[in-house]
């Protein structure tokens, strides 16, 4: 009984694996289109300003999209496709820098700065609210201040 069960499971597993592999190979046209769009959205149009290969109608962008499609058909992964374009165009072709090296600085700095600043503010707030605040004494002007007040009063009276 056990052997039959084991055998059945093995067969089912093989069938499942085959199906999975088969579906990975036989990407439907729609899925292919979708993946082309996704990958093209990560590449910048080389002849345009701020838009992606996906959004651009320029000749180079069309050629890049077609290249992405044919590379996907060959079975290349997203990483390999990106690496190909980086090897001929440089990292510039990616719309956002890789999260390593200098790029890591870019990605981490905003949140790090906000958290740091927020923490600083919260800490100073706590200190200020916890410290017993002395009664604010009414300010009495010193000699220089008094002189200035006199001067301003005179000016005011003169109708300046």
């Amino acid at each position, binding site marked *: 009984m056990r052997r039959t069960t084991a055998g059945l499971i093995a067969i089912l597993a093989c069938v499942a694996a085959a199906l999975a592999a088969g579906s990975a190979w036989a990407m439907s046209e729609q899925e292919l289109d979708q993946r082309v769009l996704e990958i093209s959205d990560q590449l910048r149009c*080389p002849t345009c300003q701020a838009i992606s290969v996906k959004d651009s109608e320029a000749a*180079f962008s069309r050629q890049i999209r077609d290249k992405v499609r044919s590379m996907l058909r060959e079975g290349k992964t997203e990483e390999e496709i990106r690496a190909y*374009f980086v090897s001929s165009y*440089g990292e*510039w072709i990616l719309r956002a820098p890789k999260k390593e090296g200098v790029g890591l600085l870019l990605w981490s700095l905003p949140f790090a700065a906000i958290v740091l600043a927020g923490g600083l503010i919260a800490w100073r707030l706590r200190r200020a609210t916890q410290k017993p605040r002395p009664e604010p004494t009414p300010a009495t002007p010193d000699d220089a201040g008094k002189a200035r007040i006199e001067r301003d009063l005179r000016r005011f009276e003169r109708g300046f």
Partner: protein
Amino acid sequence: MIRSWKFWLVLAGIAVVVGLFAYGFTVDPKLVQSPLIGKPAPDFTVTRLGGGETLHLAELRGTPVILNFWASWCVACRDEAALLEKAHRRYGLESGDVRVIGIAIQDRPEAARAFAERYGKTYFLALDGEAGDIALNYGLYGVPETFFIDRDGVIHHKQVGPVTWEGLVTQVNAMAGQQQAKR
């Protein structure tokens, strides 16, 4: 003198930003450095425009190559056509020092041939395929772009935009090594 450290921090910040933008004046925002410099030139095989012989880039090893990308719809390519032709006659035909090759991208055969005739390009001309594989392999983002490939098939230099005669001579000399190119 202001003692506050915050003030000096702000001043330092301003200095950094201003310095960065001042640096920005020294670089061309449109120029992208090619990662292919110093790397082997991507291989290709093309058929001569108008039919005839095929050319396989790898077979040209041993001779420096000036690989120029152009198009019939490219205005800046018109002036440089004469210079490239001159380089072809002087360093290619006469002494065989250099091979000049022109590949038209995103173009049609008739238009390309008409352009070549009009602007006097007699060296080896071919068309990039519809898919633009050669252009993409070379990381093209406009025309004209010219690659200078040395004897070992390694890309020595890339010129973005039209070539100048001085630029051509400099590159030919550099790739020829000891040999002096005749002016």
